[in-house]
């Protein structure tokens, strides 16, 4: 039961083979047993979860249950959820009980999904290793010495460890794809504007996008059906007709044109990962796909451009945490400015402060053109690279990260080393394209490796189709860590 997919669970619930309450109890027991080791959840509330499960059972008894009603889900602690602590991995919001729901949470609630708890994450989604959480790092379920990836490390870990069948995540520079890759689960970051950002604590507004993490592409499609949709409270939410992201899952891949960007297979890619990706490509060729070499010449520039744009937006998005209306306030201060400075020095962790300072500097007087404007121009060049590439192919494939998960503490002293490992994921966010990670094998040290699929704008259904066909032919996604 604990290894069942979202789809299988929904079928069992529909068949009344299990009740939502029983299912929730099963997961809660497993969380109680394993979370002390993994540290993947920040908040778990047994009573609340069981109450939600009983409500789902009542809906089912009344014949009003939808497809996913009663299935448990874990929410990244970045989505505001009424009555739950929404900390965003920060001391700043350690006492913040949200008075409202994010759009994503509302949609999940309306679908009858049952909240198992709130997953750990890098503080304010800033990080690639989950070591930046106020609540301590999440351990990789495959190897407790390894990082789970970040920032949605808790969400990826709970799905991998079977502490939840599905979880929500957010991706600003790879924060769904990279932990999905490191934990051996499937995750998709949709096209910017597909999932509402309302109630999703902002890191970098023009890059942030919510998405699902699950065992399979099919489950991702089902959960994305729930999470996506127009929301008038987010000015960047796109007004588009509702899509069924699972509609093309079973389409054959004959004639599919796969673009392989030269720059993604160049120096810096570990042999382990290169081997896994090559294997996956060979598999897809067997399924009828064709391969073309493409170029994304400005890939290298995505790192500096991202580390200007994201911190700039973040530096002002995080100005609201001032200890006046909610959240942490310093205990002692001598005046207003002192209160602000102490509150923020105490409430934010080191990486968040670094990014706020970088962002503050690049926007400050006299530097705007040289940094922020320049980065936005490079952003355009990067988007143009993809535009040209998609004239030659249907999807782009490549690695998610240069290597499998590194060890906890290995890079935490050197922010720049950490930033460099985001090389294959950042450009997708800068361009606003959809991207996903699909389990595709293991490194020599036994840590999972994901395959990245990048789609054209609104190409989610096509990507999920490729991923699903791959998962029909392989069993990497069914592997679970021994815990």
């Amino acid at each position: 039961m604990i290894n069942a997919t979202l789809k299988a669970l929904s079928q069992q619930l529909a068949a009344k083979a299990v009740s939502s309450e029983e299912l929730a109890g099963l997961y809660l027991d497993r969380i109680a047993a394993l979370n002390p080791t993994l540290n993947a959840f920040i908040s778990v509330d047994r009573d609340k979860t069981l109450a939600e499960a009983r409500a789902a059972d009542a809906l089912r008894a009344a014949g009003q249950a939808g497809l996913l009603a009663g299935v448990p889900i874990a929410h990244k602690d970045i989505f505001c959820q009424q009555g739950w602590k929404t900390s965003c991995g920060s001391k700043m919001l350690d006492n913040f009980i949200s008075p409202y729901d994010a759009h994503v949470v509302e949609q999940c609630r309306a679908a009858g999904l049952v909240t198992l708890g709130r997953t750990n994450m890098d503080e304010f989604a800033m990080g690639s290793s989950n070591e930046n959480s106020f609540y301590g790092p999440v351990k990789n379920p495959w190897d407790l010495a390894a990082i789970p990836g970040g920032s949605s490390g808790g969400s990826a870990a709970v799905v991998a460890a079977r502490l939840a069948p599905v979880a929500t995540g957010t991706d600003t520079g790879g924060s769904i794809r990279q932990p999905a890759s490191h934990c051996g689960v499937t995750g998709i970051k949709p096209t910017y504007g597909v999932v509402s950002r309302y109630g999703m604590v902002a890191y970098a507004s023009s890059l942030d996008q919510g998405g699902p993490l699950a065992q399979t592409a099919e489950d991702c499609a089902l959960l994305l059906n729930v999470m996506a949709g127009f929301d008038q409270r987010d000015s960047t939410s796109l007004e588009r007709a509702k899509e069924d992201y699972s509609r093309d899952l079973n389409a054959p891949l004959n004639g599919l044109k796969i673009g392989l960007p030269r720059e993604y297979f160049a120096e810096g890619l570990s042999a382990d990962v290169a081997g896994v990706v090559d294997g996956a490509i060979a598999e897809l060729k067997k399924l009828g796909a064709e391969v073309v070499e493409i170029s994304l010449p400005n890939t290298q520039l995505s790192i500096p451009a991202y580390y200007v744009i994201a911190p700039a937006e973040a530096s002002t998005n995080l100005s609201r945490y001032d200890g006046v209306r909610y959240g942490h306030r310093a205990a002692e201060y001598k005046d207003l400015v002192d209160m602000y400075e102490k509150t923020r020095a105490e409430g934010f962790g080191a990486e968040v402060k670094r990014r706020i300072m970088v962002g503050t500097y690049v926007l400050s007087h006299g530097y705007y053109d040289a940094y922020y404007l320049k980065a936005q121009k490079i952003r355009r060049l990067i988007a143009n690279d993809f535009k040209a590439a998609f004239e030659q192919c249907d999807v782009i494939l490549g690695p998610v990260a240069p290597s499998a998960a590194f060890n906890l503490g290995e890079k935490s002293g050197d922010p720049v080393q950490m930033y460099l490992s985001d090389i294959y994921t950042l450009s997708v966010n800068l361009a606003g394209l959809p991207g996903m990670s699909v389990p595709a094998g293991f490194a020599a040290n036994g840590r999972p490796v994901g395959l990245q699929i990048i789609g054209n704008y609104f190409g989610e259904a096509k990507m999920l189709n490729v991923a699903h066909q791959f998962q029909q032919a392989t069993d990497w996604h069914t592997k679970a860590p021994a815990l």
Partner: protein
Amino acid sequence: MSLTHQDVARIAKLARIAVTDEEIVAVGAQLNNIFSLIEQMQAVDTDGIEPMAHPQDVSLRLRDDVVTESDRRAAFQAIAPQVENGLFLVPKVIE
């Protein structure tokens, strides 16, 4: 380009983050590493390229002028650090 300790202190002040003298030294070194990475951008010719602020080239959607919110002060202030008579209290504001 290299950030001086004075620059770091100024940025921290602008960002309202208290930093000790030791932190200025440590953070200054990290920021300089980050900026040496960022400086790679300067080698690229971007003349005539239009800056890209958003992934989608769409216009702002507008909302009708209708009152839709009701008073939720009690719920909102239940999690406030310090309130009195419905006001948020802060150290004296000097104009």
